[in-house]
């Protein structure tokens, strides 16, 4: 376990170096969050009752999404991993007494968390100070705060376990570009990163909630806002755990198969 902690540490520290990028990121996320809310506001002015979420719920959703963006952005990949596969530098990683899947998983967690740590607090604080109904508020009850923390952690694991499948696919496709573009759009759309899932047509919702993508950012943010409550919240968290196990096991199996037929490129 210590070796994985060391990996986490070195990546986390490396990620914390990029302060300027963090400030730029904060500004972008503010602008983005603000624009999204204003756009929704324009619709809400025509009658709030026709929408599935109340506007304060929506504000909470959007600001939480912006604050924790680095944990859930689907378009972000660790290029070092793709490069290692493309160029054959993976040879060195395979010479280590270490499980490659676990190592990559930890690396991804560290990079995303280091970015999140630098960005989330300023966004949360400023968003809390905005005027009603655009501000960020506390969850409806303390228990939802606790559930949110557990759920965001599982959502994070589900997202990384899913992106591990994409990294592993590079062993087979030799160029990750196509699959990256496709996967990014699919994840962002079905995870509720573009429009929160409650806004989708009723008929589609059962399918969308059952997919692994809904178990990423959708579940924790809806719990935080108070949209998902009670039994429904617990069920959606169990679904997260289920998806995590399924993705983890299939990722590990796929990795094992890939390594058996790996051809280290060049030299």
């Amino acid at each position, binding site marked *: 376990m210590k070796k994985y902690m060391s*990996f986490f540490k070195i990546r986390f520290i*490396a990620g914390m170096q990029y302060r300027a990028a963090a400030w730029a990121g904060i500004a972008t996320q503010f602008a983005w969050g603000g624009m999204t809310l204003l756009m929704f506001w324009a619709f809400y002015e025509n009658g709030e009752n026709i929408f599935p979420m109340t506007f304060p719920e929506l504000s909470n959703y959007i600001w939480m999404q912006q604050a924790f963006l680095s944990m859930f952005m689907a378009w972000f990949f660790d290029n070092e991993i793709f490069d290692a596969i493309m160029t054959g530098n993976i*040879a*060195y990683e395979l*010479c280590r007494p270490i499980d490659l899947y676990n190592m990559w998983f930890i690396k991804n967690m560290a990079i995303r968390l280091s970015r999140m740590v630098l960005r989330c607090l300023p966004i949360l604080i400023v968003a809390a100070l905005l005027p009603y109904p655009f501000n960020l508020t506390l969850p409806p009850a303390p228990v939802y705060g606790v559930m949110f923390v557990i759920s965001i952690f599982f959502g994070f694991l589900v997202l990384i376990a899913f992106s591990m499948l994409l990294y592993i696919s590079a062993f087979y496709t030799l160029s990750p570009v196509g699959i990256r573009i496709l996967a990014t759009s699919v994840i962002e759309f079905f995870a509720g990163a573009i429009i929160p899932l409650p806004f989708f047509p009723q008929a589609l919702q059962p399918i969308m909630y059952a997919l692994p993508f809904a178990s990423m950012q959708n579940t924790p943010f809806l719990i935080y806002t108070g949209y998902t409550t009670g039994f429904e919240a617990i069920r959606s968290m169990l679904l997260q755990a289920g998806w995590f196990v399924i993705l983890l096991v299939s990722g590990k199996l796929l990795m094992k198969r890939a390594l058996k037929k790996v051809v280290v490129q060049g*030299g």
Partner: protein
Amino acid sequence: MIELKNVNKTFKTAKRNAGFSAAVKDLFKRDYTYVDALKDVSFTVNDGEMVGYIGPNGAGKSSTIKIMSGILTPDSGECIINGRTPWKERIEHVKDIGVVFGQRSQLWWDVPVIDSFELIRDIYKVDESSYRKMLNELTELLNIGEIIRTPARQLSLGQRMRCEIAASLLHNPKILFLDEPTIGLDAVSKIAVRGFIKTINSEHGTTVILTTHDMQDIEALTERILLIGRGRILLDGTLAELKKRNSAHKTLTVDYIGKKLEGTDKIIIRKDLDGHAEISVDTNVLSVSEAISYISSEVDVKDISVMGETSEEMVVSLYKEFKI
């Protein structure tokens, strides 16, 4: 102990002709060719031995190293290293080996070298006291005390290679695989690296297998040579044996004035540029003195020197002999 028995590996590569129509055709039907990277490769290396593994590009050297380090799974054959099959027990196996790939880097680009070392220490679970001891020894032998606090990206190739080698030895492995460790290095670094490899081998009893294109590496380091070509082991012997076998050829370098020098069936002119000629003589058919007297009778010799075959030429002639 390293034991390879009848190891085979075939790679499948897609092939297509140049041009648009070939590319379109390729979408529907692909032609594959099968390349035998390794064919029936067998050899044994004892503990503490130092072996030079040579052969032209694409001969299968790196594939063999990759199989021995557990990265590549062969199609058939056996490979037992210290009682384990590398690709079956990869994680246990790699604890005992150190690998340097001369063309790749294991140091983290953005952080000081010492941080990479410490990460490697944690990965191999080296305890603090043996880590300190090994680090001190390595920094001294490789003369890297000054540079281990510098980020890897700011090091020169020679400095980096010395750090790479140190990184591969921090866990004091029993076996060290070096895949072209001196590639691209200047003379000073090369000599430093060679001296170091020798010391590690004699003091720690580390088994070393070294692939290289630099015959001076081989001459300086190894007694035993394995020659591989087109995936087959062609020769397994000592450098001295090899030299004996090929010493019949001498090269004469002549500076002369006068008409252009004409060769005969016994005197082969390899190169002749404005009165500077390189001549090859097979001493089994013609002695050197006979050759010199023939040349001086033909032209006005200003300078002449006689050289035996260098190791490099020896290898080239070996390649020719085995048609690889």
